[in-house]
């Protein structure tokens, strides 16, 4: 049996042949029993498939918005509000941080620029330096006896440190006055914020109101969508 004949028979069964082709095939079917056998086979196979029961779907395949990744349509102004809120929140925290760090920054600047006057801390840091050799000189004799005295710098006695603190004041009474002036000048700078608190309040207000507005807009959009 030629594949072409099988194809013709199959199409004939489905009524897909032109009238002339059908007539030609029908005349062949009368004279060729082999064709009849094949068309019976094809008809039987098709009949079996057609009588297969159509199963009901085990569940509904209807889609939810979540399944197709749909989001509720937001108002056009929504992105603007969202951006403004995000910006206000960011700026609020930025200004808050600046105001928090500003006093520390200014105080460091004040102490660092003290020059000859300096502060108490700068005295304590600088003063022992010239005294240190004197302190190490004192135990010069035991140093020879012990193997590692050069490694450990002896702590100057409390009296010595007091002396070193007192020494600059004693040497120069004006320096002490300058330090006192510096400190009194630094005090008001610690208190004054870099960004006015009014600005911070405005930013916080915008951030809060924006957040509330965004939540409301979302809720309304979802409600309308449902």
């Amino acid at each position: 049996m030629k594949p072409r004949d099988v194809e013709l028979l199959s199409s004939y069964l489905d009524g897909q042949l032109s009238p002339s082709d059908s007539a030609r095939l029908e005349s062949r079917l009368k004279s060729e029993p082999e064709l009849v056998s094949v068309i019976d086979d094809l008809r039987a196979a098709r009949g079996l498939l057609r009588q297969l029961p159509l199963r009901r779907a085990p569940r509904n395949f209807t889609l939810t918005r979540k399944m197709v990744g749909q989001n509720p349509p937001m108002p056009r102004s929504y992105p603007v509000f969202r951006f403004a809120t995000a910006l206000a929140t960011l700026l609020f925290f930025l200004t808050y941080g600046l105001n928090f760090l500003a006093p520390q920054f200014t105080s460091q600047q004040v102490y660092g620029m003290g020059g000859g006057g300096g502060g108490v801390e700068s005295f304590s840091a600088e003063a022992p330096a010239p005294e240190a050799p004197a302190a190490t000189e004192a135990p010069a004799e035991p140093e020879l006896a012990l193997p590692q005295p050069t490694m450990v710098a002896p702590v100057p006695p409390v009296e010595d440190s007091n002396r070193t603190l007192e020494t600059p004041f004693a040497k120069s009474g004006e320096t002490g006055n300058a330090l006192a002036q510096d400190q009194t000048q630094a005090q008001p700078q610690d208190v004054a914020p870099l960004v006015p608190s009014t600005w911070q309040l405005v930013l916080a207000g915008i951030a809060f109101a924006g957040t509330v507005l965004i939540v409301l807009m979302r809720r309304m959009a979802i409600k309308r969508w449902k």
Partner: protein
Amino acid sequence: MNEQALIQDAQHGDLEAFNTLILHYQDSVFNTALRILGDDDLAADAAQEAFISAFKSITAFRGGSFKAWLMRTVTNACYDELRRQKRRPTTPLEPDTDDGEEMDSPRWLADPNMTPDQKSEADELEHAIQHCLNNLPLEFKTVVIMADIQGMDYTEVATTVKVPLGTIKSRLARARLRLRECLQGFEELLPSFFRLELEGRA
């Protein structure tokens, strides 16, 4: 049901309109997937995937037979599943009888409206047909499912599988012949008209 109006609404994002279409076609889509994959759960998953994919790409539908378009989507979902199975083959969990042998017709295929005898016969015949369908090459199987089980005409089948009409005719004829040969192995299960033809020829 105004199919064209529903399709247009769905193309504008109306999910409810698309769900109405789903309710109309879900049995056909599920049955197509079931006959291609031969497994209820996989068929249900493929049908669901096909509907999701169809909704997402419904704007690409440019008219013609919506059923054919849907069938192409589910066929693609089934092909994806078969490719996945090929990459990661698994052993099917066929239910066993009390003797520990594999059951020919699982009980879960039964239709609750039939008598036990009818159920048993129908199940076994369905199982035999499914077995023979599974033995067909995929391109033959798809064509025969569309034409003989879904009752689509040749043009719709050609649209679905995207091959020329002549190829559809050829594949369908060869698929039917192969099925016939395969089903002869299940002679005792076949309906009387089918058996009588065999006996007459012998």
